[in-house]
């Protein structure tokens, strides 16, 4: 599997992915072999079932949403580039990177982009706002059955109240950023990718 994987992934592609996402060569190769092992249909793309086959994701309360985050709007298949692009959000931020890509667009694993990823887990309709119901949905997913709807509703109301500064009863991305300004998002939303 390993040898086949590496032949299918050309050097230029690896270079491009490297530039776009910042992963190292060995990380990319390793993730590619993971990609191919998930790709049961062997057509170079992953579909949602491929993700759902991962048992641990089934038990993750946010499993569906995480899977969904991989698929761009309206599409059902994700290729390796897209896969890596999404995973790039979780790369740890290194100090020396802060100056490197200053001129180019923000790297995928910047704090803002990490927060945007989290934001999009709530905001499925991509209207750049977390409405009360979207919030409730996610809350309900994360919480057990012991909480009644009224309680959950109050929690959701309180959440919105805390964050909402412009009074539209929903949380915009900027409000989201503001609310989490003290939180060490860079650390919380980072994974140490194995080489």
């Amino acid at each position, binding site marked *: 599997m390993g040898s086949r994987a590496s032949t299918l992934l050309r050097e230029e592609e690896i270079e491009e992915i490297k530039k776009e996402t910042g992963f190292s060569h060995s990380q990319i190769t390793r*993730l590619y072999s*993971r990609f191919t092992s998930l790709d049961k249909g062997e057509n170079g793309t992953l*579909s*949602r*079932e491929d*993700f*759902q*086959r*991962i*048992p*641990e*994701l*089934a*038990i*993750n*309360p*946010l*499993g*569906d949403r*995480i899977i*969904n985050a991989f698929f761009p709007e309206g599409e*059902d298949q994700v290729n390796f580039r897209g896969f890596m692009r999404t*995973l790039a959000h*979780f790369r*740890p931020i290194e100090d020396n990177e802060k100056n490197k890509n200053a001129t180019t667009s923000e790297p995928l694993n910047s704090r803002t982009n990490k927060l945007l990823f*989290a934001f999009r*887990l*709530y905001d*499925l309709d991509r209207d750049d706002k977390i*409405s*009360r*119901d979207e919030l*409730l*949905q996610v809350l*309900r*997913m*994360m*919480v*057990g*059955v*012991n*909480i009644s*709807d009224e*309680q959950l509703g*109050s*929690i959701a*109301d*309180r*959440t919105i109240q*805390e*964050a909402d500064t412009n009074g539209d*009863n929903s949380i915009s991305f900027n409000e989201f950023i503001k609310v*989490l300004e003290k939180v060490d998002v860079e*650390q*919380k*939303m*980072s*994974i*140490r990718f*194995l080489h």
Partner: protein
Amino acid sequence: MDSSSAVLFTLVAVFSLLDGSAGEIPPKPAGGVTIVPPVQPDGGPQAYPEAGKSNLPVFTMDYLRIQIPFEITLWVLLASFAKIGFNVYHKITVWVPETCLLISIGLIVGGIMHSVHEEPPAVLSSNVFFLYMLPPIVLDSGYFLPTRPFFENVGTVLWFAVVGTLWNSIGIGMSLFAICQIEAFGLQDLNLQENLLFATIISAVDPVAVLSVFEDVSVNEQLYIVVFGECLFNDAVTVVLYNMFSFVADMPVVEPVDVFLGVARFFVVGLGGMGFGILFGFVAAFTTRFTSKVREIEPLFIFMYSYLAYLVAELFAISSIMAIVTCALTMKYYVEENVSQRSCTTIRHVVKMLGSMSETLIFFFLGVVTITTDHEWNWAYILFTLLFAFVWRGLGVLVLTQIINPFRTIPFNMKDQFGLAYGGLRGAISFALAFTLPDTIGRKPLFVTATIVIILFTVFVQGISIRPLIEFINVRRTNRNLDTINVEIHCRLMEHTIAGIEDLCGQWSHFYWKDKFMKFNNRILRRILIRDSRAESSIVALYKKLELQNAMEILDTVSGDISAAPSIVSLNEEKKTSAKPKRKFLAADLRNMHNILSKNMYKIRQRTVAFTGKHSLPNDTHSREILIRRHASIRRSLRPGSFQTSVVPKSHKYFSLPAGKSLDSNFLPPEQLSHLDAQETMSEVAFPSRRSRFGKPTRSSSKAMMPLRRLDTLKEAPSVDALDKDRPEDGRTRPGMSRINSSYSDSRVPASRRHFSSSSENDNGSADNFRNVHHETEEEEQPQLSSPPPGWAAEPSDSSTQNPLLRRPQWNPKKM
């Protein structure tokens, strides 16, 4: 403050007086287990008057008899009063660590005693310190060691503890030896071994002072745990080196064999300590399995076993500190599940109390002894010691961090390293080791003096300045104060996301071993060590098995056109609810909310098998619930009819099975039984085995087995009535259901597994919890559905179905 200091002085005065009358306290005999050895004073209780006197003495006093316990008590009280004293002024403890204050008070008392030419109690004999005063402190540290961060950082901790201490000892020792060569200082009689011995003593760092500062400042968890762990575990190295060097200091020549033996000894000491600790931990856990009838003495076992571990390790001269720490770590997990709530609280309180008391006493005595011992002062040696200690620690931290950073998820930045280096305070252990140096070493007083100077310097100067420095350089902090609900929720979301992505990438980094261990733990250890007060019936077990099987198979057989696009909120419905007046939330509400969230939010996944035990059922529920929700969503999205509008498939992503649809309407005959084993462990997540431990209030409720109830059709919120275009879909449910019924009728667990029936068939009994799951999710979903999931028949509003959701404390997985 005035009154307490007055009391202090009174006590001291009284004490000195008494002391003066009675003479020096004899040292406590070694090896005794009891704190108070029996005292046989020469007088005995005041006997009746000798022959010749005829008067009955009305008032007699016999001090000698009670002398030892009395003085011990007084000293303890004195130290404790000192502690009360500082806390009167809160601001003092903020800026000056408590250890400094204790030492200061000790200095004062020592000064007083010295001026009345008193000797301090000879509590600093090796035995007293190591056998009585040190174990409670270490037990306290070990028992309250935060396990999760510790195990996440265990590599770093051990690295700093072992290699760091070696580096420090050898470095300082060598440099001091080099200094000794300089004739001007008059230190030539100190040979290399003695210098190395001394260096070992002063490289033992002590966490007490620095940890309290770190806690107050809320430094980031990594730093905290590394400093903490390092202090605990460098004992192994220190003990070995100390023994080795003191042994060697007597020898004229050091041979390479000795060095090799030293290394071998290190492993014996370290691993032996851990081994004993684990052994005693397991024995303790096993014992507590049977203590349900003798609840009053349950805490006793904890203390006895830990102390026993310590003593046995001392017997074999292996690292007793590691033994007791490992014992506490091992024991805690199982014991806290076995013992009663009260015992648990008692244990914690007593551990804390003993640890606190010991610590107080030690620092207090440090102050006293400083004044009253004979010192030998040598400017050069002492100053250079200070210098080298500082330099080598800084260098050591720098070099070691560079080496270990690539292996860490969160590397230490310069600020963390500064905190790590500066936080290397010396304390009690150095003190004790110095005092118990064999007298054969010629310059022992010099060493003692130098040690005391270092301790005082680090505790006072570094201890006081570390707080402003840490705040000034702005070390990365943990955000302990979750003032906002937002933060709590979003952080949990992020944690789940990370867990999911890690699973997705198929890498668990250091979780891998943890999971392996947890599997072993649950399969074997918990069975043996935890009292199983509730036998799970085989029916339930079988039911669960089938359930899981289905669930897994659904995942596997999902195929075809799942355009399970993300659930989208129907904007139409949303507008209805938008016009709500802003609610006021009281502080109490907020606290409740935080409580609710912290108790109820799913913890991050632990891939472990929930075994039979009183927590197994609750543990399963969450994974099941999530599984069911996901299956339902997949289910629904599979249905071709659900794609009628663009909005619909998205809203169907979650969560409920429509009436008549079973979990496995696409269920193919069980082919993938082979999957079961591998995935059973995956899905039967002991989701919150942690949660069930913390959620003590739910303990009792988990024992209540919910009666099976019939599942009627899904109750639906009224608003769905209007939507009837999906009624025709009802028909589809029948075939699926009947197929399932037939396939399950034989293997049917009586009254357990049923499927949703359409409105006509109400014969199915099932746990209503399942229904409730759907019920609540459905309720939540209601406002968003523009078209309902097909086949949901409106059930007559049934209050009994409403209530369980609100009322029931635990979800029982015996559904359908």
